[in-house]
């Protein structure tokens, strides 16, 4: 007959078995992934942004997305957030009288909302079918609609709320920024950076962009400095590996020829922080702002990515199927203990 004591003892035993199986596994817990050295990204400088929304219009155009109306008159493309058809959006921090730009009090500030292209993306980690992938070379977090099963785990996983599902379609896809990777083979880079009139959105290698961001932070606010526009050219321009064609072969080519667009502008009153340098192991899209990043809608994230944490737990528990086997064994043992053969005394029919 099973007593409560027996049951608890059994549980403890199977737990210990599971734990002993787990211990060697935890030693190889997954670390937060790093940005690939040639990873591409954007640098968004909120103090340079003028809120013209040329980037929003250009993004819609090159990604063939329709306008989205939120007002009654249906005249202007006015999405309230990124959606399955809006991959890039300029949002605005508002406070009080909104008199001063880049002021937290009685001011306003712009903030670009688009994919951050994390070094260790949660959406890629959450995707059960590898529809979300991170290119090992460019680091672009890409989406493959042919592989997607429409589970929307990526929508729930992203800390920035970026992948969005096209709920308006019966065969909806996920919509998100892919850094215009479909245009790379023609030598074009991200359309938002291509059209930005002030260089508030700058395209380039993330490592170069990070150096540029730190250069700006080191300058005195109000000082005049050279601000590059369009694409940040490294000091020694290298031929970068561009996009990929359908067959997975790499093209080796540079970007389209363009005149140097750098100009003189005044240094903004930056917060001494490059958002995206360390958040979740770093992102390939970096941001500078004069207004608190959390107030501008960017979450405060630790240097350890949630993908690393969750994958460590999951891979530990399921490593070599140890935990499922242990649990099954425990359950079997408990069940066996409670089964009374049919021909036994009628009294034992219940536990």
């Amino acid at each position, binding site marked *: 007959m099973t007593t409560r004591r027996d049951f608890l003892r059994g549980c403890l035993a199977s737990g210990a078995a599971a734990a002993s199986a787990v211990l060697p596994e935890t030693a190889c817990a997954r670390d937060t992934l790093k940005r690939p050295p040639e990873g591409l990204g954007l640098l968004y400088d909120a103090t340079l942004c003028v809120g013209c929304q040329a980037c929003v219009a250009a993004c819609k155009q090159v990604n063939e997305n329709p306008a989205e109306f939120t007002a009654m008159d249906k005249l202007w493309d006015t999405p309230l957030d990124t959606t399955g058809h809006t991959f890039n959006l300029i949002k605005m921090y508002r406070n009080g009288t909104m008199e001063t730009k880049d002021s937290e009090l009685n001011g306003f500030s712009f903030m670009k909302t688009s994919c951050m292209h994390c070094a260790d993306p949660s959406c890629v980690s959450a995707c059960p079918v590898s529809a979300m992938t991170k290119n090992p070379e460019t680091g672009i977090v890409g989406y493959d609609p042919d592989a997607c099963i429409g589970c929307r785990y990526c929508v729930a996983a992203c800390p920035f709320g970026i992948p969005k599902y096209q709920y308006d379609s019966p065969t909806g896809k996920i919509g998100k920024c892919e850094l215009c990777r479909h245009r790379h083979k023609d030598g074009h880079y991200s359309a938002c950076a291509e059209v930005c009139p002030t260089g508030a959105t700058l395209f380039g290698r993330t490592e170069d962009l990070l150096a540029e961001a730190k250069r700006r932070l080191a300058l005195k606010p109000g000082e005049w400095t050279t601000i590059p526009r369009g694409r940040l050219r490294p000091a020694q321009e290298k031929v970068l590996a561009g996009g990929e064609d359908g067959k997975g072969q790499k093209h080796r080519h540079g970007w389209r020829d363009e005149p140097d*667009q750098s100009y003189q502008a005044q240094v903004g009153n930056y917060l001494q922080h490059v958002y995206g340098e360390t958040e979740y192991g770093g992102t390939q899209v970096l941001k500078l702002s004069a207004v608190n990043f959390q107030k501008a809608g960017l979450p405060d994230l630790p240097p350890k990515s949630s993908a690393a944490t969750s994958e460590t737990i999951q891979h530990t528990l399921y490593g070599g199927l140890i935990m499922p086997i242990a649990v099954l064994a425990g359950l079997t043992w408990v069940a066996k203990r409670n089964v009374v053969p049919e021909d036994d005394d009628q009294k034992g029919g219940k536990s």
Partner: protein
Amino acid sequence: MANQNLISLEQDDRIEAAAARLSMDRREFLQFCAALATTLGLPQGADAAVAEAVATKKRPSVIWLHFQECTGCTESILRAEHPTLEKLILDVISLDYHETLFAAAGHQVEAARKTAMAENKGKYILVVEGAIPTRDNGIYCKIGGKTAIELLTECAADAAAVIAIGSCASWGGMPSTDPNPTGAKGVDKVLGKPVVTIPGCPPNPYNFLSTVVHFLTFGALPAVDHLGRPKFAYSRLIHENCERRAHFDAGRFAMEFGDEGHRKGHCLYKLGCKGPETYANCSVIMFGDAGAGTWPVACGHPCIGCTEQGVGFTKPIHTVAKLKNIEPSAFLPRIVEEKGVGASLGSAAVLAAVAGAAAGAGAMVAKNLGLSHKAEEMEQAKKEGSKATESTEV
């Protein structure tokens, strides 16, 4: 002034006379007055007041001084063509002293100035063209043995109004560009009081003319901003009404002179257009009277910001402008947009009623469940007797 109806002036002899004096037909004259009233941004009916004033008022005496300048302002006004403006300059106003236009010279012309000043004391309009050199007691510009400072102070003393025409007179203009060897300054700095300024290099002649006609019609100068610029002409950035603005908003720019974007008429901002930091009405009333598309930006050259101190002749042409019209747009979404609306009183009441009913029903069901279970047990007990209670103990 009293007449507010242009139609009623159609048969007016005075209008006929004024039109004849200006070598126009009557209709042309009235159209011209209406155009002036429109440039000034005056309300309906003001065209009649302008026509009446131009036809009947005594022509105001104008004394026009030239200092450190290129005479571009005068040339620009002489070349305004709709309608023949030199007629107007000579006939609508009484130009009593103008160094470029006067046939006389020397002591003769200085005497004319003195006479005009004495005759129209306190009534004449003083127009200043060109910057005033102030270094070394202003010895770098002398007319008739007098320095510019002396001449200006003398003429301004009894003037009804002082108008600084062109950027040089307005704020120093090109002569005041660093290192400014002559210490060139604008009229207001030398006189130590605000004056009406019509900056531009050269300024649009109609902005000057409209200011003068406003004075003639209403007896007062038009409303001006903190820099003395008439608000009807200088209250908006060129960028705000620019014909290429849509290209700016869509991110379509000319990157180099002669490239595809430039040929297609895209925005010139990246070529250094100063439209976003220059207050002037060039993008509205154009320039040069040669029809549509005849102002610098329409011709394909970026605005150089000639009206704006610190921009024109200071910032290089290729230097990118600092946008002055960054406004918190009502169109932009908040960082976190509220989605949906809060519960209304009605919906909250309905929800509460449903919740209450559900809770009540749940309680009743639970109560009955207990009862039926008890009833079942009782029945079981009846059937099996005392055995039933023993078996449940395990």
